[in-house]
């Protein structure tokens, strides 16, 4: 199959000749595609957040900028770019300036391993999901840098909470991911997606690929409850990893003003903001790949193909973003100790049980 990379390379070879130069140019342009996607998606998501919250709260939302307020995110970005970029005098200047770039780099790097379509994946790694879990941890470091570098007590408390929370929730999230990995027998996101071809019943959430299973796929029913538990754990954990409600204690505005980004303004703040939105999509995208068939069409071969792959993948990812926004404007926030309780005493035991059950079932069905 001709991938996007091949097409791009051919095009640039025709321009620059078949040397190292064209290869470097291809790589750069190829790497910029997710960046472009994040920015475009960011605009949609910011508008979506404003409009969905308005819809939930019996309001109109932004209405003045452009037709029905459609240009509001652009106006917001213009405002953020023009704002004075202040650094507190007592801040640790280098760490303070480094943190927003690092947090964005972490969120952006996750997109390298996401299979947007059969013909597009930034880097097809045989340990793709493992890479995503580990590179996502870069966010923790940068949040701690932001909290420490700001030299502000609110920022520091927010950063401490954030680190404790994200590190804790990586455990149940990893367990939920492991449940799928055990059944799929692979950590490569592209092959996990390929496995789930042939419609909705072959998605891992609904029992996994039946054409590959023993007993003609009839026994896959017993996998469904396990996968639902894993999916719920993954979803709850991913809310906590992206600091979204009800787990937004690190940036709880009623307690800590803005948490770790209290002192940030202008483009530095915009980077934190964009990184948060990018992570919202990427956790949804990972859930899509692991549980909901990635870029596969839910209708089997109908509407399936490389181009439709992009559509399905982004659509599924965005529906996760929608649910996250919906939850944000509905639920109150948990307290920091309750957040930890949910993680260690609820999600992790169920996660361990799901992994154990999935392992036994996988041996029975797929070996």
């Amino acid at each position: 199959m001709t991938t996007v990379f091949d097409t791009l390379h051919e095009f640039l070879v025709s321009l620059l000749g078949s040397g190292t130069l064209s290869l470097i140019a291809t790589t750069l342009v190829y790497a910029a595609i997710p960046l472009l996607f994040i920015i475009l998606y960011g605009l949609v998501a910011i508008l979506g957040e404003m409009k969905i919250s308005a819809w939930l709260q019996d309001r109109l939302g932004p209405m003045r900028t452009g037709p029905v307020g459609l240009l509001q995110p652009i106006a917001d970005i213009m405002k953020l770019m023009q704002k004075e970029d202040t650094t507190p005098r007592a801040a640790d200047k280098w760490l303070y300036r480094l943190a927003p770039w690092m947090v964005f780099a972490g969120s952006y790097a996750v997109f390298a391993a996401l299979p947007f379509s059969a013909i597009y994946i930034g880097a097809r790694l045989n340990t793709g999901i493992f890479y995503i879990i580990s590179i996502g941890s870069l966010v923790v470091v940068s949040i701690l840098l932001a909290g420490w570098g700001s030299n502000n007590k609110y920022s520091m408390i927010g950063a401490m909470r954030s680190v404790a929370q994200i590190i804790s929730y990586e455990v149940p999230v990893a367990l939920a991911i492991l449940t799928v990995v055990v059944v799929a027998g692979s950590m490569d996101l592209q092959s996990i997606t390929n496995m789930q071809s042939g419609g909705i019943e072959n998605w891992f959430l609904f029992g996994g690929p039946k054409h590959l299973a023993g007993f003609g796929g009839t026994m896959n029913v017993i996998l469904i409850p396990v996968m639902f538990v894993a999916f719920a754990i993954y979803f709850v954990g991913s809310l906590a990893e992206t600091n979204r409600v009800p787990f937004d204690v690190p940036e709880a505005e009623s307690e800590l003003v803005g948490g770790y980004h209290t002192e940030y303004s202008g483009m530095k703040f915009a980077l934190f903001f964009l990184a948060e939105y990018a992570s919202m999509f990427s956790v949804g995208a990972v859930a899509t790949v692991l549980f909901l068939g990635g870029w596969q069409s839910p209708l089997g071969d109908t509407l399936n193909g490389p181009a439709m792959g992009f559509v399905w993948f982004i659509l599924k990812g965005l529906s996760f973003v929608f649910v996250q926004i919906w939850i944000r404007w509905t639920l109150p926030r948990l307290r920091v100790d309750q957040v930890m309780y949910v993680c260690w005493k609820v999600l992790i035991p169920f996660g361990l049980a799901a992994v154990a059950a999935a392992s036994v079932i996988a041996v029975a069905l797929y070996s």
Partner: protein
Amino acid sequence: MPEILERRTIKHSTLATTTHVHAPEEVERGRLRTEEMVLNMGPQHPSTHGVLRLEVVLDGEIVVDVIPHIGYLHRCFEKHAEALTYPQIIPYVDRMDYISAMSGEHGYVTAVERMMNVEVPEKVEYIRVLFAELQRIASHLIAIGTYGLDAGAFTPFLYCLRDRESILEMFEKTCGARFLYNYMWVGGLSHDLHPDVLGMCRAFVKVNRETHTEVNNLLTFNHIFVERTANIGILDPLVAVNCGASGPMLRGCGVKWDIRKNDPYSIYDRFDFDVAVGSNDLGTLGDAFNRHWVRMLEWEQSLNIIEQILEQYPRNDMTDVQSAIPRRLKAPAGEIYSRTETPRGELGYYIVSRGDVKPWRVKVRSPAFSNLSILPLISRGYLIADLVVILGSIDIVLGEVDR
């Protein structure tokens, strides 16, 4: 000591004006040396409900001590009042508890009328009670909505403000003002009830009952909300009484005390309503949840009172609402303490007169001030997140605390 650490050392101010200074102590815990931290919350902070400054001594995230610093909104009400005639004071009364200006006015005019033995027409009393109860709902809507905000729920706040808007519309139609009314005058009112208001009121009660259920489902019975608010900031009834707590703060810990029932003023004795008190059903008696729960119940009781007013209101009474206003407002020499039940609790006016057109002394017993004084007692040992929730449950209005 390296420079960076030196910069981070907490320097505590020991100003003589500060009544209570808690110097950070070093705590030995095993071999790790930890230090208490002083965090200033406010006066610019999203959840101090105005310009309150809390000096919070923290051990990690645990609150060791809280010292509320007030006075950022002090406007010398009591001294001003000595230089003004009795009717001139009313606009200043509005600006004390600006969230429920009608209730403040009601308390003030009741006090002055008692002093001067003014008989108020029945129609005026009905309008006053109607507006006081509408104001109580408006105030509780803000209290409940912002309490949701403190707990992190944004949406109920907007539902509450939407309903508050229709109350303000009724006020606006009647007296032209939406927030600070100068509506209740000694012996009467500034304007008669607008003819549309009774119909609007009837429609409002119907819509508002639905909102009540909706807010209950979205907020009060939300599992996360209950987890956040139940069993924190428990106030003992004895402490509450000794500290002078009143209103939902006092009723939340099970004391059935409501001035409208226990020391009736105006025409409250004509209406049938219950005094809401806290319970042990979802939280512990006297905790933050019960204070919220009492407000929810009071909201419903106020709707009941409004329905009764709508039935009993003398529609054919053509009395001029200004007919009983005395020509010369001169209180006889003497003193009076008169109290009324505002949404925040017992609002008392102590007025000393020397037979002049101006009072010689006016002292206000502010419910929010007394309630706020309990904050340090009920928030020690909880987390910062709890402190915000406990402060929100007290429902302070800084205009009234500082006066």
